[in-house]
């Protein structure tokens, strides 16, 4: 499938093909202006942050231009609303509220709760500049600092958790007119993977106990369940092979914070949390957000997703969807691939993969029974980051014998334009497996003949009559697996089947 564009200008229909989105733009822009919260006036005192970030004394203030994901994070008199491709606390206006600045206009917007609000409009323009997320990268011009303005690798920063060194591709965006190193920074600065802003190397960088600044590169904290189940970043030891499955949680329109389905996602994860016996882990199948090539709205959408997912206390594992590349089903991300390292792809790595200890979008999880009765592997395939290395890895992983083999891949067998679907499908034909767990299509479907489950009704706009929901796999004493799909609102069973460890349906 491709993304197609048709125009009707009143005299007929013109078909224009729209190619895959290009990698994220690398241009910068004007630095954001910060406002005195008392007077509302712009103030030089808080514009002085060298890396484009708010200075320390305003970073915690949830006033004008403070990034946010909900109104709770904003001061009274401010609403968390989308501006450009992210969301910020914006001063309310209209009625008896104080008037906007002379250069501003009181405008109607939708806040992140989906409610309309009137806020000062020029604030939107100011906050909405790309440098909020992609700052100018250094305090001084490299040329002025006597630094080679060629490909700038700068001084060696050493090994620094939570930061990307100059030679490592990361989410920082090079400032306009600058010549940056691979990490998007210059002058040897590091890219802070939590903020996507360039910083000098912290003094603790070479220290073995240097701690990461955020939950990225988080330590592998095993999740323990009643019954001695333990799940960590590589798999775990279980008393029963029980897990949840949730797929496709993106909003309907690109770059939209207001339409992000966080209420639905939160309810689904609360339902999963309430499953009894409690589930130790869950597999998700991709498309956690919807942002376009020039946008940096992917990161705040991942934050919304993660906030909604917190209702579940078990471990969650992630698969790359086409919307974590460019959005096009045919897109292919990753170093050396056609679409390269898009901002969304890098955000996916930073926000979802890093906390589960993964650097690549394809990986294997190995589980075993606490008494050795069975083994299971989950092979997570990235069909939108497909290359020869992944093919070789998949071939080797599938060759390892286990009682159960689950292949987790965003696209199902029918979505053949995703670059990795056909080649990974060909490898699957060589080896036994239990089930292919997929999403992409926003519904639930089970194809027993192909041993394939499609579950993409996790909050993304529904394509069929099937309601939002989630799946739960539970192991029987005879080692057969029972899968039920539940409606998130009524908990009605939307689908049900039982299979043997080799995936053959049990009548």
């Amino acid at each position, binding site marked *: *499938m491709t993304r*197609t564009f048709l125009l009707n200008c009143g005299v007929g229909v013109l078909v224009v093909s729209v190619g895959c989105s290009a990698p994220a733009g690398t241009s910068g822009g004007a630095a954001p202006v910060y406002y005195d919260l008392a007077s509302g006036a712009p103030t030089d005192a808080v514009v002085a942050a060298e890396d484009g970030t708010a200075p320390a004394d305003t970073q915690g203030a949830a006033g004008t231009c403070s990034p946010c994901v909900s109104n709770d994070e904003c001061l009274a008199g401010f609403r968390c609303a989308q501006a450009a491709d992210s969301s910020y606390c914006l001063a309310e206006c209209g009625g008896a509220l104080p008037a906007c600045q002379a250069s501003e206009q009181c405008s109607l917007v939708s806040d992140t709760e989906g409610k*309309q609000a009137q806020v000062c409009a020029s604030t939107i323009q100011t906050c909405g500049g790309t440098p909020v997320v992609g700052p100018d990268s250094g305090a001084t011009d490299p040329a002025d600092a006597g630094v080679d303005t060629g490909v700038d690798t700068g001084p060696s920063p050493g090994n620094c958790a939570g930061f990307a060194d100059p030679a490592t591709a990361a989410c920082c965006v090079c400032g306009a007119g600058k010549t940056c190193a691979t990490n998007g920074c210059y002058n040897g600065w590091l890219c802070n993977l939590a903020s996507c802003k360039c910083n000098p190397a912290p003094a603790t960088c070479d220290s073995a106990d240097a701690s990461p600044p955020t939950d990225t590169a988080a330590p592998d904290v095993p999740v323990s369940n009643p019954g001695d189940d333990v799940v960590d970043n590589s798999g775990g030891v279980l008393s029963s092979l029980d897990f949840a499955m949730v797929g496709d949680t993106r909003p309907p329109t690109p770059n939209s914070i207001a339409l992000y389905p966080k209420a639905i996602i939160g309810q689904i994860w609360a339902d999963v949390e309430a499953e009894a016996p409690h589930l130790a882990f869950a597999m998700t199948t991709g498309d956690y957000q919807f942002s376009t090539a020039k946008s940096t709205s992917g990161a705040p959408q991942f934050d919304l997703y993660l906030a909604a997912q917190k209702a579940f206390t078990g471990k969650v594992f992630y698969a790359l969807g086409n919307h974590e590349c460019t959005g096009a089903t045919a897109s292919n991300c990753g170093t050396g691939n056609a679409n390269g390292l898009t901002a969304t792809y890098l955000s996916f790595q930073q926000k979802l993969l890093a906390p589960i200890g993964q650097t690549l979008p394809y990986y294997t999880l190995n589980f075993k029974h606490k008494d050795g009765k069975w083994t299971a592997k989950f092979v997570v395939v990235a069909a939108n980051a497909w290359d020869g290395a992944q093919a070789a890895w998949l071939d080797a992983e599938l060759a390892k014998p286990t009682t159960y083999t689950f292949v987790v891949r965003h696209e199902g067998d029918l979505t053949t334009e995703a670059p990795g679907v056909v080649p990974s499908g060909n490898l699957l034909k060589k080896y036994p497996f239990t089930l292919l767990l997929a999403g992409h299509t926003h519904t639930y479907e089970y194809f027993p003949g192909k041993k394939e489950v499609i579950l993409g009704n996790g909050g993304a706009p529904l*394509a*069929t009559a099937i309601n939002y929901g989630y799946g739960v796999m539970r192991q029987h004493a005879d080692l057969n697996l029972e899968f039920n799909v539940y409606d998130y609102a009524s908990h009605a069973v939307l689908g049900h089947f039982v299979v043997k460890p080799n995936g053959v349906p049990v009548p």
Partner: protein
Amino acid sequence: MKKSFALRWAAAISALAALMACRRPATVGTQVQATPPVATPAAPLAGSPTATTAPAAPALQVPRASTAVAIEQHDDDQQWLRSVATEPFLQPDSSEAARPYSIARMLWDDEALYLSLYAADQNIAADATPTDSPLWLGDAFDVRIQGDSPTAPVYAIDVAPNGALSDARIASGGSPDRSWHSGARLSIDIDGSLNLAQGEDDEEWVAFVAIPWKSLELTPHAGLRLRTRIGRCDTLRDGQRRCGQWGGAIDKLVGTVELAK
């Protein structure tokens, strides 16, 4: 999934009536939204149900675009982030969410009313292409706009995922005048394939429509209110016909769109 459109207009109009099984006229007094609409409800339009007789009808305050609105290259157009969205469409005569999912977003400026019509769709299909074909028999959106008077003419614009457009002016108590042309500009963004082979999966299609105020015989200004109804029908892969709507039934426009500053 080929459909025949060799229907004569008389038959097509009859079929439209039959289609009310999908777009059954809602009793105004029972029109219910599952959740409050996104917008602050405006005061009811003349002749509309009031709070004393029925739950609030859906209402939107539509922001004014600050710069030109992109219809053809919308993906990164910041103007669409300023737009207001309807609640997800409801099933006809019901407070239940419609499936497949549909929403509409709106903007306005001095030239036109802009709509972005989103349709989740597992099998995007459309055959009819001549102007004013009976698109409503296939997969299509149906937009109905009326001035703030129950006797004002209703303007009907249908759009299909193949870029076809059908429009009509319906005078109060009259039948559709298909000689009227909206002059609307339309672009369609398809994520998937139009009329693809059975068994493959599509994701969605979006219609971007610019309806000139001139053709609606209206002068745009902040505070202008329009009776509005937007519906969408789809034929599922199994042949089931599914419809959804915002703003009431096809012959009872109870949605309110008010132009904001």
